[in-house]
């Protein structure tokens, strides 16, 4: 199937610090040569520690941050080459749901105005139909029509997240970046929001990029999962394969760290120690080598190539030389 979203060599370097005229700045490699594709109707989970660049990837897909290098194709069209007016037109098809339900809604606007704004910008409906649509969207995400007259501060975190989802749906997009949509919510509310997102996906045929730092949440909603470490994707594969047989030592450690409901269950220990290195000066060779339990001399020198193992399961690690572990 042709992918809906295809990303090639996506890279973002920020310049930080330095003097008043740009002297002495250093390069922060937030995202370095990231490639993946998302098929229509699919959910790709994107996980990694704080600061690994996953949010930057999500924002670059929507050109909320301009990439330094690489291509972002949406439905076969390179978004990065589009002039501003064309890009604005394409934004109808792609929306975003944010992490912080407090910061994502303008405190000075009513809920109805917030949900109507994308419709007003694109002029897809007249004023009367836009109001009706806002009411329908509120109902669809589990709120009442009357809530439209209120202001964001009158709602709880979970309700605000529903409002944010209603706004993202206003233009009938095909693709939504969910940027840690449940990380700021209580556990009991998390499940409700996840279920809502899944229902909407089934109903509207949506495609998601679901960003999270919590493997448990991602496991529930994703079809495939990509694991990021320090600006790079280290492993990407089908959810079942990735969870039952994680290949990259970092993925193994993350999965071992997911808390389980069975306290006595035997668990493989794969503890990693230390802190994530600075993206200002990433380690040479494999970026994970400073914390990897299986580190080999080659890891300190050469960056591992991406290797495909069984069934679209990709990993970037020297433990899996090209073609060597097809049956792993």
């Amino acid at each position, binding site marked *: 199937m042709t992918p809906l979203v295809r990303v090639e060599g996506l890279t973002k370097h920020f310049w930080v610090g330095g003097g008043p005229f740009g002297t002495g700045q250093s390069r922060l490699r937030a995202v370095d040569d990231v490639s993946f594709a998302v098929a229509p109707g699919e959910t790709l989970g994107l996980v990694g520690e704080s600061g690994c660049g996953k949010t930057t990837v999500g924002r670059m897909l929507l050109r909320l941050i301009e990439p330094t290098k690489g291509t972002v194709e949406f439905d076969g069209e390179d978004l990065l080459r589009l002039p501003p007016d064309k890009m604005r037109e394409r934004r109808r098809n792609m929306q975003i749901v944010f992490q912080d339900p407090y910061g994502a809604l303008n405190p000075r606007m009513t809920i109805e105005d917030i949900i109507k704004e994308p419709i007003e910008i694109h002029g897809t409906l007249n004023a009367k139909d836009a109001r009706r649509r806002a009411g329908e969207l509120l109902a669809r995400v589990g709120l009442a029509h009357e809530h439209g007259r209120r202001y964001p*501060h009158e709602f709880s975190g979970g309700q605000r997240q529903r409002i944010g989802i209603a706004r993202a749906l206003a233009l009938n997009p095909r693709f939504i970046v969910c940027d840690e949509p449940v990380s700021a919510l209580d556990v009991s509310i998390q499940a409700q929001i996840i279920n809502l997102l899944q229902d909407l996906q089934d109903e509207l045929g949506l495609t998601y990029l679901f960003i999270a730092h919590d493997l448990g949440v991602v496991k529930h909603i994703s079809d495939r999962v990509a694991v990021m470490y320090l600006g790079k994707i280290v492993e990407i594969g089908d959810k079942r394969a990735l969870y039952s047989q994680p290949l990259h030592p970092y993925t193994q450690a993350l999965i071992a760290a997911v808390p389980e409901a069975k306290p006595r269950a035997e668990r493989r220990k794969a503890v990693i120690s230390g802190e994530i290195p600075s993206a200002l000066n990433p380690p040479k060779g494999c970026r994970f080598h400073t914390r990897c339990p299986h580190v080999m001399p080659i890891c300190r020198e050469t960056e591992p190539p991406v290797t495909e193992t069984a069934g679209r399961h990709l990993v970037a690690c020297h433990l899996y030389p090209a073609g060597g572990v097809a049956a792993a």
Partner: protein
Amino acid sequence: MADSVAMLDGAPQIAAAAPGRSTRWDVARRLWRHRSFRFGLGLFAIVIAAAAFAPWISPIEPNKLAMRARFLPPSWDHLFGTDNFGRSQLARVVYGAQLSLMIGTAVVVINAVFGALIGALAGYFRQLDNMVMRVNDAVMAFPAVLLAIGVAAVLGRSTPNMILALSVVYIPRTARIVRSSVIVVRQMEYVQAAVAAGAGHWRILRRHILPNSMAPLMVQLSFLFAYAVLTEATLSFLGLGAEPPTPTWGNIMAEGRQYMREAPWIIAIPGAALAITVMALNLLGDGLRDVLDPRLRVQQ
């Protein structure tokens, strides 16, 4: 007089409004409950009423000479006494209030428009920021009163020139405050959401950024009114304001200075009017700051 103006130079970096801002009605109620705001509002209302009803308060013309009634101390006939030409001090002070408030209002309005515009553009379009802010810094490097004296001296004596001089001095200070809150607001996720929805710069500024960076500006403008009134008085005290015999608080005090021993009321009464006006505005500003920008509140 000039010392208190310097406070503005170290303009506080007021953060943008916290999310979860209450509705307008709620803000009004909390302001009313704020004791010093209420007191300041009352005082300021008295000053405004004095200026507005000047002809009724004092039927005597402010420039009517009465050589037989010179240097009369305050009494029932002449509530605030008379000056060296026998003019009614009451009339001169209330008519002077008109000019002070008019100039203050004009400076505040001009600052609200241009300060907000320059600050918003510098804070939003970061390519402009460095250039605009360096020009700002250059203007702010001069002490406020000194710069106002310079500009007023170059332009010549007139009320519009006075307003222009005060605006030139204070717009960079207002712009800086607006800029800092715009920088905070522009990275809020609701601004990102608007970009993702396809909103243009103008819409983002007007609907998302400006309404959410107004709180520090409102606080600033109430203090600015006080500074404008003070600086105007300073300039006209130094002989750069409205030409005598037009009464201003500053030039009444300048004339009265010579007779300070024999007739202290000539200088004391406009001085008191000035002090009361500035205090009223400062109390108002404190109240606004506590309610609109609670994070700045000084712990007591």
